[in-house]
Every structure is written in structure tokens, then in C-alpha cells.
């Protein structure tokens, strides 16, 4: 699907200049407006941290251009086109929701631009995989499989509430099958509009079912709203399991509501052992306390820039050659707790550990110097939960 060699666009494949330091322009796509705007600054902070580290360590000079995706695929695409054609970025990273990642990732690949996205949806993978698109976030499937196992341990009857869009649909399928594979049953499911702020209707459904537990497959602040409303409505003794939880969404809430989460699968959490001073450095930057998007952005920048330096080129083909099969050894691995992380060649997935976590008691939640509300209870190696190459349907 690659087009003819570009003519006139100028910046295809910068190589090491004669003066020494390699110059790279990195385009970061982050939601500075729209539904995911609260996440926006964290992508930039994580990326800048990585760039600072790399510039110290390697002979490289990185120019960062930040673009607003507006949490909207069309808006993101406009930004991507501008970044490539007007600003001549060498490669790209960012994007949170799967629709944005799909849009800019596909376009980037079609146009020979290397791109690392942060979507978790399985619909971004498999048949949708692209030659120059990589995904840094653990997949829905990986996290659902992890939590599905744990949920079945906690109780037998679950009710699944899932956000009514691609990520949620996908999560519903994988969680349900994981729960059922492990011997528990799903007694009911509801698709909830996204975004939404009144969960009463679904909580009523839960309350009137035989379920002892609720699986929340709802992203963002909506998850925290749902939890809070369960508490207000008196459903304090049902178990709550949350898929791909991002603890940041709870921070606007009181501790008690967050404390209701019993188990969660997470892509990263700031209480991982071995995180080192990463947390402090993020906290210093000030905009948001450290959470998963900082780590994923850091990893994306770290990986793509290193690959370019290794290849001595920013051409998408060259970067691809360096990334495929590459096992991470850098600081990005340390902040993930040191488990095995590698770029699978067959579908450009970053296979990395999934974290199981539980909320601390309200009284033990720490707010200073940054919020630490969840503890890791288990770490599942990526290889244990990732789909096999054959299963994904990707034909790279």
C-alpha cells in the first residue's frame, strides 16, 4: 500500500548530517480538546521526558511538534497532513482513542510515515494492522484475559457494563469469554452510551440481576461516575472489576468511591516496583500526576528515536527494520517494572506485561507528592495473554 517515492516533500528519510548530531522532527498527536482533552498534556510530558533523556544519552537532537487531535479522527487527520506536508515531521506518535489511531495510523502508513499509537482496542490490530503502524498500549484482549481470570476468582456471577463504541464492544466480547473460560458466568450485559453521566438505569439492571459483581468496561471519567453512582444508590457490597483502568480518572473523586474498585487490569500504574525517579520527574512537570499515558508516551518516543538512531535513518522502512522483533532494554523497560517487552514482528504489537491492581483503602491513599491510589497485585507477562500471530489475522 505504499505510494511512489515522494517528490518534493523534502523530508523523507533524514539521515545523519555531516555535522554529527542526528536531527529528528517528531510529531506528537495528542487530544488537547474534545472528550479526551484531560489526557492531552500527559502525552506531551512523557514525550519530552524521553527526548531529554535521549538527547543526553545519544548524539541526537529532537524537535518536537505537538498537534491537537481534537479527539476526532477528521481533526487528527488534518493535523497529520499538516505535520507531514508543511512541517516535515519524520515520524509520529500519540493518539488515544482507537478511531483517531486508526485514522492517522492508516493514513501515515499509506504515506510512508512511521507511527506509534496508544489505542488499546483490538480493532486497531489484526486485519487493521499497517506496515508502518505500531501499538504501544497492551491490547484489550491482553487486559481482558488478565482480569477475566481474576474476576472468576472473586465471584461467579458478573454483570458487564460496556461503553457503546468500538473499544467497549471489543472489551465486552473478550471479557465475557475470559470470564466464562474461567468458569464464572456473565448474567447480563448493557451497552452504555459514551460519554454518559447518568448510570442509574444500568445500575438498576445490575441491582435486579443475580450478579455479585460488575465489570466496568467503561473508559475515562465515566468509569468513576458509574462507581460513585453505585455507591450513592447503595450498591456497596457488589464487587467491581474494571478493565484497562486508568487511575487518573478517579482523581477527581473522593477516596471512598475509588476505594470501591476491587480489581482492575491496568497498562501501567505508578506504584510498580522499579519505577525509579520517573514518578518524581513527571510530578515535577506539574500538569498531571504520573499515570499510564506518561509511561506510554515515554516509551513511544524512546523506541522510535532509538530505532532511527540505530538505523541512522528516519525512513519508515528503516525504522521498521529496527523495530520489528526488537527487545526493549532501555529505561522504558525499567519504568514498566523490568518485565520482558518486545515488538512482535508479525503485527507490530508491543508485547509487555499487564498489571493487576486493587484500590487502596481510602485511608491509605496517598496524595502527596503525587496520587498513589492503587496497588499492583499481580503482573502477567505479555506472552501469557497476547493473541498468537495466527489468531490476530494480521498479514504483515
Amino acid at each position, binding site marked *: 500500500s505504499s505510494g511512489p*517515492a515522494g517528490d518534493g516533500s523534502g523530508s523523507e528519510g533524514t539521515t545523519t548530517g555531516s555535522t554529527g548530531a542526528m536531527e529528528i522532527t517528531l510529531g506528537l498527536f495528542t487530544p488537547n*480538546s474534545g472528550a479526551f482533552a484531560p489526557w492531552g498534556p500527559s502525552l506531551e510530558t512523557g514525550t519530552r521526558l524521553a527526548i531529554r533523556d535521549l538527547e543526553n544519552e545519544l548524539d541526537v537532537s529532537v524537535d518536537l511538534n505537538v498537534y491537537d487531535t481534537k479527539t476526532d479522527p477528521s481533526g487528527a487527520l*488534518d493535523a497529520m497532513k*499538516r505535520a507531514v*506536508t508543511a512541517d516535515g515531521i519524520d515520524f509520529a506518535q500519540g493518539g488515544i482513542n482507537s478511531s483517531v489511531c486508526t485514522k492517522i495510523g492508516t493514513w501515515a502508513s*499509506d*504515506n510512508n510515515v512511521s507511527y506509534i499509537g496508544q489505542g488499546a482496542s483490538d480493532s486497531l490490530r489484526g486485519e*487493521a494492522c499497517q506496515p508502518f503502524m505500531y501499538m504501544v498500549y497492551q491490547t484489550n484482549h491482553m487486559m481482558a484475559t488478565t482480569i477475566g481470570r481474576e474476576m472468576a476468582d472473586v465471584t461467579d456471577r458478573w454483570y458487564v457494563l460496556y461503553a457503546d463504541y468500538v473499544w467497549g464492544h471489543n472489551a465486552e466480547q473478550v471479557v465475557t469469554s475470559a470470564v466464562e473460560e474461567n468458569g464464572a458466568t456473565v448474567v447480563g450485559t448493557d451497552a452504555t452510551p459514551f460519554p454518559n453521566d447518568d448510570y442509574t438505569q444500568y445500575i438498576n439492571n445490575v441491582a435486579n440481576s443475580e450478579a455479585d459483581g460488575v465489570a466496568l468496561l467503561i473508559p475515562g471519567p465515566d468509569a468513576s461516575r458509574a462507581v460513585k453512582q453505585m455507591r450513592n444508590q447503595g450498591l456497596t457490597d457488589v464487587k467491581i472489576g474494571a478493565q484497562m483502568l486508568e487511575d487518573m480518572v478517579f482523581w477527581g473523586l473522593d477516596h471512598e468511591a475509588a476505594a470501591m474498585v476491587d480489581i482492575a487490569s491496568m497498562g501501567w500504574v505508578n506504584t510498580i516496583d522499579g519505577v525509579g525517579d520517573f514518578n518524581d520527574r513527571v510530578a515535577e512537570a506539574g500538569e498531571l500526576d504520573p499515570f499510564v499515558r506518561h509511561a506510554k508516551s515515554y516509551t513511544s518516543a524512546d523506541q522510535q528515536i532509538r530505532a532511527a538512531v540505530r538505523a541512522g535513518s528516519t525512513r519508515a522502512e528503516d525504522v521498521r527494520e529496527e523495530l520489528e522483533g526488537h527487545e526493549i532494554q532501555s529505561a522504558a523497560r525499567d519504568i514498566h517494572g523490568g518485565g520482558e517487552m518486545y515488538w512482535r514482528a508479525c503485527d507490530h504489537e508491543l508485547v509487555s506485561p499487564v498489571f493487576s491492581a486493587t484500590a487502596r483503602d481510602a485511608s491509605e491513599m496517598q496524595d502527596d507528592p503525587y496520587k498513589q491510589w492503587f496497588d499492583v497485585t499481580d503482573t502477567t507477562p505479555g506472552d501469557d495473554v497476547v493473541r498468537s500471530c495466527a489468531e490476530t489475522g494480521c498479514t504483515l
Partner: protein
Amino acid sequence: MSRDSTAGVLERVGAIDLGVWQVPLGLLAVAVLLRPVVSHDLMLGYPQVASSFLIWMIIVASFNLLMGYTGLISFGHAMFMGIGTYSVAIALSSLAVPFLLAAPLGILFSAGVAYLIGRLIAHKGEIYFAMLTLAFAKSAHFVANYNPGGLTGGTTGLADGTTPAWIETSRGFTYVVLGGFRIDWYWAVAAVFVVGLLLLWQLVRSPFGRTLVAVRENEALARSMGVNVRRYKVWAFTFAAAFAALGGVLLEINNQGATLSELSIVTSGNIIIMAVLGGANYFFGPLAGVFVWMFVEEYLTDFHTLVLPLTEVPLLRIELTGVLAYWQFFLGLLFVVAVLVSPREGVLGLAKATVARLSARIRGESE
């Protein structure tokens, strides 16, 4: 004596008395000049948006057939554009129907949906009509999100395999490759733009179009004078949908696929805003509106440091990145000011009034 005496491209919808050549020449001028103007360093500085500008101009102009000419306000116009986009994207990605067949079918389909909805609601009162279009648009959005049979791709939309084989693209440059010829995508869009808007113009200046204006002006009177108001409205709605779908079809290639935002209410809202901003009273109003809106949006989003008075002479340098995360604030402000200054005439009306005032002054001085 009245404002109809000044001729030219800026003529009002109602009393147009355009020379036969002015609109075609005006459209050609837009098509030819837009890209160099937009890509000039003082403007946006890069050419790739120009094709989007033209496509949105088609779409907003199609909306103005409703609002400006027929007096119907639709809150769901994006639906018809989106049907065009999705029809082509689905045809290419899942049905293996060639683009050149899918595009006209998509346009026909969109027009057909509009015809049916129009039959149902075209006679409803203004606000009620608008809200019903909103409801149908929401329903279309729901269906696409529901992803029936995996056809529409839900929120992710369709991206993979949605580009026809004769489109070549690399690092943002898109070409149409046909029988050994390689044409810049912009010129392909420009050709469709000129032809499409000429058709639209013919539509509004035809006896049919003049009747639409009468319907807008006074529906009850038109009816009592023998005009089947409802049928005219239904057909205006249908034609508007067809032209919107034409824009949508182009958008499919331009954006390489379809996404839910093409069907969203926000997009419908933006279409209205662009039409009003430009001046719904003018044939070229929507074009001006698209230009101003997209330009401001691109400009504000892309803008980090304000150097006054000139980049070469940096007396004052203002770091705006922090403020411009809130660029929509300024958009809102622009909007409020535009509405307050000239609620009905839009930017184009404002420009025209200014020109008239200036020329009057100059004439006054020379006497």
C-alpha cells in the same frame, strides 16, 4: 435606490442580477487561486488543505440551497454528506464495487434518503423541521455506530482498503493516476468543484430555483398563488442532499476513508456556522464562510508565537501556545462579533458594505 443596484458576484440571493459570466468566472478564480493563496507563507503556508477547502465549499454551498434559497434550516446536513462518504468507503472496502460506480450510487442513495425524509417532514414548521432533521441525523449516526454486519466499522470508521487503486499517495501528496496520466488530486477536486457549483448555480437561477426563493420569502403567499410548496421543498432537500453527497464522495478519497464524525451533529453544526459566517444571502457566501472558518481554525491551531509587527522585525514576541490550547474561545468570540455586527449578511455582506462605503467616500471626495 436600493441595495440591488450594485452588480457582481456579491449579489444577494433574492434579487440577484448577475451577469451570465460572473459566477462561472468567479468559481474558476476560486479554484485557480485558492491553493496559491492558502499556501502562501503569510497564510497557512502549505498547500494540502486547499483540496479540503474546496470540498467543504461544495458541501456548505449545498446546505445553502436549503437555508439561503429555500429558507429551510437543517440540523442534520452532515448526514447526507456522510452517506456519500460511507457509501463509497463501504463499496470499496467490503463490496469490491469500483469507485466510479459507487460514487454515483452513493449520491443517488443520499438523494433517495433525503427524498423520503423530505416527504415526511418538509412541511413542518421551521424549528420543528430543524429538530426532525437532527433526529434523523442522530439515527444515522446510531446506525453507523452500531456497525451492522461490520459494514460501517463503528466508531473507528473505515480506513483500510478505502482508497481506489488509481489514487497514489505518499507523504501527503495525492495523485490521480489514469491511463498513464498523473494529475494532482487538487486539480481533480477543483474540476469537480467548478462543475458541481456551476450545476448548483444553474439550479438556483433556473425557474425552479427562483420559485424556491419565493417559497422562502413567503410560503403562504406562494401556496395561495399556485405553488406546490411542499414538493418544491422536498426537491430542494433532495438536491441539497445530492450535492452534499458529492462533497462526501470527494471527502472519502481526500481523507482516505470514512469516520463517524462525518455523520455527527457537530459537523452539521459546523456546516450551518460556515454558511452563516459567510453570508447565507449570497451565492458565494458559503464559500467565504468555509474559507474564513477553516482558515481561522487551521491558523489558530497551528499558531504558537505571535511576532509583532513582522517576523523580520520582531519588536514584540508573544508566546501563545498556552492560550491557544483554548483556541475555540477565540472562535466563539469571532462568532459573537460576526453575529452582532451583521447577523444576516455574514462576512461577505460585511465586506460588501465596507467596499460600498469606501467607494462612496472616494466618489464623494473626487466630486
